[in-house]
């Protein structure tokens, strides 16, 4: 059974997802010791060439698969420490991963998820066909909102599609077809599951699909580990071989109030600009 990691990256005007995917791909390949495939689009790949990271990308990725750029374009306010801006993001084609992955067992990760441990390797040979992270775990511990846990005020638990592992078979194909259906009928599902549909969220589509798929129940087990997350107001202080130091923002003052040394732990970094700023330190290792 061929195992591998898949990362999606479609650049927006504001965020260099191509660069973050090379960083994320490098760390996944190094620490999980499996090949990594990038799914991107022509303009993002051309940007890699222009920004002189294409050679590094070729060293990191086993395959670079070019697909049509998704038509859905969301925007949201993204912080970078105390600064913020409204940025577009294009990520509505994750449900295509089943068709696009070259692997029998795939771990799909976000390009802002950095792997520094082998923990996810323990799930490759699991008999469970589909595993998603059931929750986000805040790095500081006290900055989780209601809608980080639930799809809506009256809704179902929110899964985090930051990490998804699946075996390519007819059962998981049905799951990803269902995610695709939910995406196409997002407005309808927002009425049924009572969430705001102003932006498209993969996490919500995956959560609804999982809810339906599991017989309208929340199954308490057979998950990937919770996604340890640094908020977008947090800043990466420094990178070293086995981890990161991160400045954590205070939920009240919003300024950096403490620092943590995160050694040998996988981390979801919502502050993309912070990844871009330290990327040179990581690219030097490729």
């Amino acid at each position, binding site marked *: 059974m061929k195992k591998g990691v898949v990362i999606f990256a479609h650049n927006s005007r504001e965020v260099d997802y191509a660069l973050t995917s090379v960083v994320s791909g490098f760390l996944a390949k190094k620490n999980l010791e499996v090949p990594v495939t990038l799914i991107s689009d022509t303009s993002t790949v051309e940007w890699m060439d222009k920004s002189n990271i294409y050679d590094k990308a070729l060293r990191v990725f086993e395959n670079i698969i070019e697909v049509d750029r998704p038509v859905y374009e969301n925007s949201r306010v993204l912080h970078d420490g105390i600064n913020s801006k409204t940025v577009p993001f294009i990520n509505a084609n994750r449900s295509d991963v089943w068709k696009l992955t070259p692997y029998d067992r795939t771990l799909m990760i976000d390009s802002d998820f950095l792997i520094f*441990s082998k*923990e996810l*390797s*323990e*799930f*490759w*040979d*699991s*008999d*469970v066909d589909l595993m998603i992270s059931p929750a986000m*775990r805040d790095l*500081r*511990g006290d900055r989780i909102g209601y809608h980080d846990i639930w799809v809506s005020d009256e809704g179902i638990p929110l899964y985090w599609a930051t990490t998804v592992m699946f075996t390519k078979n007819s059962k998981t194909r049905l799951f990803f077809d269902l995610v695709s259906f939910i995406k196409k009928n997002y407005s309808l599902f927002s009425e049924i599951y009572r969430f705001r549909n102003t932006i498209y969220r993969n996490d919500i589509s995956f959560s609804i699909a999982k809810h339906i798929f599991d017989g309208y129940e929340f199954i308490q*087990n*057979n998950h990937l*580990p919770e996604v*340890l997350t640094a908020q977008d107001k947090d800043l990466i202080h420094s990178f070293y071989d086995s981890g990161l*130091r991160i400045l*954590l923002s205070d939920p009240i003052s919003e300024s950096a*109030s*403490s*620092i*943590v*040394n*995160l*050694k*040998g*732990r996988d981390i979801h970094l919502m502050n993309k600009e912070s990844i871009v700023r330290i990327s040179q330190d990581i690219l030097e290792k490729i």
Partner: protein
Amino acid sequence: MDEILKKALDFSQYNQTLNLQRKLLKEKLDSTLTYGHGGGVFKIDRSLIVFVQMLIDRDRKNKIPLIDANNNPIMIDDLEKFRDEIFDRYFSATLEYLSEYEKIKKSRTVEKLVDL
């Protein structure tokens, strides 16, 4: 008074960092003790180790079903091999935990706590 307040706030910041580092260290231990075997995922802890050793002591060594962390029954073909693997993982993880815990316990500044 200002000096007392400054010292108190500095100490508070130190303690906040210390508590976070301790929490992260424990979470790292838990993640290292996640162990995939035979299609199941186990959490290595003292009760699993003792239970496995008890089975071996009673000469139950091959084709033994164990319940994994997800409550799935998993057939363990060679329980002695399984025992050796979880022993190794448990001791290397707890030794690393001890070593890093001792290091932060001795660190008296925020800089030392985060290895700067």
